[in-house]
């Protein structure tokens, strides 16, 4: 059964502000390293199976996705794994192409199973000196949803099954006999309908066609 993609909701989480890593000991002259880390912690206590991560690029050349997983229940140990390493977002870090595109990373593209994820870390790299400021915008993480069962069938089918109590039928005709009569009438009408023929008597046909000469005479 195919999953329903429309109407899915991203996990509500707050994206932490990007942290630009800097080279150099002293705080006086920070040198941009071209690496930035964005952490997206998922809601506490609810590990998520990640279906998809979408974002809008802003001049990031490469992105690495790391996941913090807690595979064994509530208080088990967590482990960082790399889901994607150096995914190129821009063809050429110096040029514009892909610099402001929308991207989507599906769980199938990841190197590991994105289950029981507690936190997501995106490591952005932009080696070009042309773009000193770079980031990702509109980061959304979509959880893996179970496919919805067919509502139509189960709706009225459960009506049939949940016959706990027939409503009070005093003074009313027996529903079983009435129902069986109606069912027969319904079946008879269906028989008639399925045996309808598309054959016509050709009432308005003139020799089977509408000859222009004949039409002009009438």
């Amino acid at each position, binding site marked *: 059964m195919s999953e329903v993609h429309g109407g899915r909701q991203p996990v509500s989480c707050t994206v932490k502000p990007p942290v630009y890593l800097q080279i150099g000991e002293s705080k006086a002259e920070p040198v941009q390293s071209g690496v930035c880390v964005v952490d997206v912690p998922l809601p506490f206590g609810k590990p998520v199976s990640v279906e998809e991560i979408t974002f809008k690029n802003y001049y990031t050349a490469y992105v690495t996705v790391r996941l913090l997983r807690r595979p064994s229940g509530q208080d088990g140990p967590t482990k960082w794994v790399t889901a994607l390493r150096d995914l190129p977002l821009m063809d050429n870090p110096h040029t514009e192409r892909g610099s402001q595109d929308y991207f989507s990373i599906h769980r199938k593209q990841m190197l590991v199973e994105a289950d029981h994820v507690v936190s997501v870390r995106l490591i952005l790299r932009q080696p070009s000196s042309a773009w000193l400021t770079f980031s990702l915008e509109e980061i959304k993480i979509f959880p893996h949803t179970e496919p919805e069962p067919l509502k139509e069938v189960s709706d009225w089918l459960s009506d049939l099954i949940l016959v706990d109590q*027939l409503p009070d039928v005093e003074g*009313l*005709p027996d529903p079983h006999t009435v129902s069986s009569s109606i069912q027969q009438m319904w079946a008879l009408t269906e028989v*008639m309908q399925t045996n309808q023929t598309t054959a016509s008597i050709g009432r308005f046909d003139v*020799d*089977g066609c509408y000859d222009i000469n004949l039409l002009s005479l009438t």
Partner: protein
Amino acid sequence: MADKEKRRSAALPSGMSSGKVVKSDSDREFLEQAGVGDLLRGAILKMVEARSDDPIGFLADHFCNLASVTDSGTAGCGDEDQQQQSAGLAGAGAHEQQRLNRALWHLRLAHHSQRSAFSNNVRVAYDLLNLNGCLSQASENPEGPDGSLLVVPPDAEGSGGVKGGLYMQTLECLCSEGGVPASTSAPLLRRLCCQDHEAVPYDVFRHGVLTCAVFSDYIRQAQRLYAEVCCPDEGPASRALCSAVLGTLKEALETSQDCDANCFVNANTKSSACLEANAKAIRYLEASAKISPHKLAQVMAGAQTSGPGGNMDAKEFENAAADLFIARVKVVS
């Protein structure tokens, strides 16, 4: 058989009872020539199909029909003599009536639910009523021997079709024999109507006959339903109750009709025939859920408290039920 062989071989050497040998031979030959085996086989098959209560009467009718078929086959085609034309005029009307009666007899043999038997009978009845081969031979002068023009379209396949008037008479008889009053069947016959001068092809004939047969069953069922719905002591049934009950039938019909409307066969849907069939099955299940006893009990209980006041008599109920059916009959054109 073996006995006969033995007797024959025993008789030959003795030479004494040569007369007897000739007789038993000629008996068998005679039976074979007359085709009696086929005749009797046909009669027994017909009887098994029809399962009538009166086997002797049935067999008598059957052989009577066969006899008149062979009679008219030889008489009709040779009827071109001037002297016989005036007699033919009067005789043709009675002749037509006779054909109609025979066709109706065939149509009565099997119930429409016995699919193959019913179809066979419809075919036989159609061929009976469609004796154009003989008529066209006889009508070399435009007036025709029996006065009524049979307009055969020039490019008709086979022999054109059954006369519209005969077709309508067949349908009227079917309806009235099925217990449907004329006023109830009138709207149905209007939908299936064919003009007297039109030639009705087999498919249209079959559709009309089947519809009338099903309709008479439907009306009988509706009459039974009314008897169930109205409490016998209290006179006519309440209008609210009747409307509610017929409303469930209408809903069920509309639900299953959706699938007919949606599932048109064209090149695109051929590949998804399986899906189509599934959708249709689900629609049918859904429709049947609307007329389950549980649902009906709910609807009837609801009708008790709310709904139009007053009573509905049997005739009105029957007409309302008939409307539901007739609305779904395709108009012949």
